[in-house]
């Protein structure tokens, strides 16, 4: 439901069911264009005022100057240049992307078995099992990330257990670094990957797997030669989806990263609320937006493609 940056629990949030199966006649439709505008106006107007205009202003601000703590009305590419050349910020971008890639890979790997199971099971509990996948999402990202903090911190469950078993002498550092952020974010995003993968695997005819085994392919080879290649659109779709959500997430990096400004989102927060360099924060937000939108578009393209033969 909400994953650090408020993404929906669906693999393709920007799609809607297509228009009603019994469309109105053309003439009728033309007569009804008036009502359509009236129906759409409140929602569109609201988003125009509080989403699109603010975004436009944000973009405009990202090109404005910033001197002695004040925004200056002048055009500059300086903030973008600063972000993309300063090693400090490049490192932040790199960390963000690295975590997002790890999260993308891990969510696909962890999600695949469950997605496969849900796609293939004929159990009457399927609905319940699917609901269980989604249930953790409803509990909110803060709660689950806090749970991981309890598990992973220096005096947490994992380190205590390892120490009591004599496996380690000093606590292993599992939080306040990229490891912790990756673990927490992976957990938050696994359900997203499961949904994307499940849709793709459901499109694969199960008799193809039987045919492969009949021809002498073991379970592993059947998976590698048949199931995995045919589910590749879902795999890539899930990867880019969790990649994009992870890159734009705030709460998990903040909590498990220990409020160190290792990632783009936490740095934006710092620039905006502590350093008060709004143009620079805006530029970072625009760059983040670009990265995420690119991944979202890729994920939609790939998830939307029909599973199966090359076109």
């Amino acid at each position: 439901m909400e994953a650090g940056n408020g993404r929906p629990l669906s693999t393709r949030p920007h799609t809607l069911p297509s228009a009603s199966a019994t469309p109105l006649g053309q003439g009728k439709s033309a007569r009804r264009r008036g009502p359509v505008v009236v129906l759409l106006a409140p929602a569109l107007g609201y988003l125009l005022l509080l989403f699109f205009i603010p975004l436009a202003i944000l973009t405009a601000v990202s090109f404005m100057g910033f001197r002695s703590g004040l925004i200056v009305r002048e055009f500059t590419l300086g903030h973008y240049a600063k972000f993309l050349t300063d090693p400090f910020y490049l490192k932040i971008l790199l960390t963000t992307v690295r975590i997002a890639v790890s999260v993308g890979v891990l969510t696909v790997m962890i999600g695949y078995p469950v997605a496969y199971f849900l796609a293939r099971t004929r159990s009457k509990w399927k609905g319940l099992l699917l609901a269980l996948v989604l249930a953790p999402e409803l509990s909110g990202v803060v709660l689950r990330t806090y749970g991981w903090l309890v598990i992973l911190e220096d005096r947490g469950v994992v380190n205590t257990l390892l120490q009591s078993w004599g496996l380690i002498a000093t606590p292993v550092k599992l939080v306040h670094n990229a490891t912790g952020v990756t673990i927490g974010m992976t957990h938050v995003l696994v359900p997203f990957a499961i949904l994307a993968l499940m849709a793709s695997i459901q499109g694969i005819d199960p008799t193809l797997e039987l045919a492969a085994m009949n021809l002498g392919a073991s379970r592993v080879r059947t998976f590698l030669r048949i199931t995995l290649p045919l589910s590749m659109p879902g795999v890539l779709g899930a990867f880019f989806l969790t990649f994009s959500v992870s890159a734009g997430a705030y709460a998990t990096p903040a909590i498990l990263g220990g409020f160190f400004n290792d990632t783009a989102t936490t740095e934006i927060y710092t620039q905006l609320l502590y350093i008060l360099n709004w143009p620079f924060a805006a530029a970072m937000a625009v760059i983040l937006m670009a990265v995420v939108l690119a991944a979202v578009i890729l994920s939609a393209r790939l998830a939307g493609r029909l599973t199966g033969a090359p076109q």
Partner: protein
Amino acid sequence: MTRDRRTGAETVMGPRAIRFWKRDLPRWGFLALVGAIYAYMFLPILVVVLTSLNPTPYLRLPPQGLSLRWYAAALTPDWLDPFRVSLVIAVASAALATLLALPAAFALVRHRFPGRDVVAALLLSPLSLPAIVTGVAILQFLSLAGMRGLLGFNSLLLGHIVLTVPYAIRTIAISLHGFDRSIEQAAMNLGATPWRTFRHITLPIIKPGLFAGMVFAFIVSFNNVPISLFLVRPGMITLPIRILNYLEYRFDPSLAAVNMLSLAVILVVVTVAERTAGFTRFVYSR
């Protein structure tokens, strides 16, 4: 070495062994893996539950007793005030978002008009963007437009609606999509005006979807971090942000109890929604 008619005469394995190694083990092994992943998904929630009931500041496994001391710490104005703010904002933004979303979902599902896909994409676009960007943008917009006075309750409500509207549109659109329009045509054929048809036929039928959309919006708002982050002000802060701020400096199990408070709200809301409207079918319907 046994020769057995039922299984491989040329192998050393008996029929039970073959059945175990070649059939049951892979099958149960896979199911065990799936079960383990399910357990993993609930692990942090379980840990929070245990921590909230654990008497010591650090969770030990197995738990060393039962205590409600952290709940006592959680039930103080420090936490109850933000909790109340989150509840009010979530209810209000869910209700307002549904009002905005219902006509829009109607237009998108019921009508074909030029640019429909673009309009749909625009209405759902807040979902595709990192919400933190939206939060930053709204903060800068309010400030630069000289409306900093709105920060706090008003800005939180305005900001949350940006995110809850697309959720509500999506859920309502799903419920409208499966609607048999001949029912409405029958009503109009029997002399009902379009408004009476909507009021007495359409609305009751789509009520589950409407309700599910509202519940969705409620949960999205109630759990929201990235928009609230920029729109709170001292004294008007939501629960997730309060938890984040607390975590920045301190870390103790009272947070677990606080989290249980919010989990309880969500459980109640989802249970009611599931019982009355079949909530989950809207969650994974596409």
